[in-house]
């Protein structure tokens, strides 16, 4: 799932080398912390947060297959 977020983010940004994802396992939820270049923040968030919301939807659907909840945090 870390790979999924990383792949999507890399496809969206201008500077893919600066994309990194950290996975933090919790009891119920796995948190995925996405970091991108400051200039790319808008690309992963999108207008009105629509891109971030779309990534979360994809992550949620993928997580359902694994019976696990994933949370995406975009770090600034």
């Amino acid at each position, binding site marked *: *799932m870390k790979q999924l977020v990383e792949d999507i983010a890399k*496809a969206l940004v201008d500077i893919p080398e600066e994309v990194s994802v950290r996975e933090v396992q919790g009891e119920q939820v796995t948190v995925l912390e996405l970091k991108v270049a400051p200039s790319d923040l808008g690309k992963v*968030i999108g207008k009105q*947060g629509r891109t971030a919301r779309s990534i979360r*939807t994809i992550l949620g*659907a993928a997580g359902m297959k694994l019976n696990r909840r994933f949370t995406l945090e975009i770090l600034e």
Partner: protein
Amino acid sequence: MTERKYTASSIAPRIEEFLRTVFAGGGFDLEFSIADARPGEDDVETPDVLVKFTGADVDALLANRAELLLALEHVTMEMLRMPSEDHSRLSFDANDYRLLRIEELRLSATAAAEKVKRTGTPFRFNPMNSRERRVIHLALRNDTTIRSESQGSGPSRQVVVYPAGMASLPEPPPTAFVPRGGDGRHGRDTRPRGAHGEGRRRDSGPPRRGPRR
């Protein structure tokens, strides 16, 4: 729509590579075909390029008002760097969802118009994306006894239908949280919203109105 701006041959390789990566990473069992859309397939909007999905996970794709389908479509368009005014030029579909949804929206528009005429009071639709709002506005454009306009911003923007002479109502205050999709199906939207201003939901809390689907 005006002349073609995108063709399957120009964007299909990138779409294909991207979707294969996403499907592999997310464990989705989906196949797809990418083709130039034939004009006239749909009289409301004919995209330039159509991506059709089949496979075991089509149900997941179309769940919650095709939430996943639309999310994949949006992220793909962002990946292609399509400016937002071009977003109706690429369409993702499965099981003719898009066409059926347009029919459904037209019926809802007609029902809403009847209700406004009968009661003389405005009718507020559930929040919709811009493409869906456009279908409603188009469906009502020839009816001179009513008017329609979009209100609100972002994910909570919604169409309101008024009697022709009535002034617009103020925007509803942001109050209770309305689950996304707002169509009466239970949303499982339990994800915390980021604390950094993205996806700030000014979800207004009008009583759920609009035709039950």
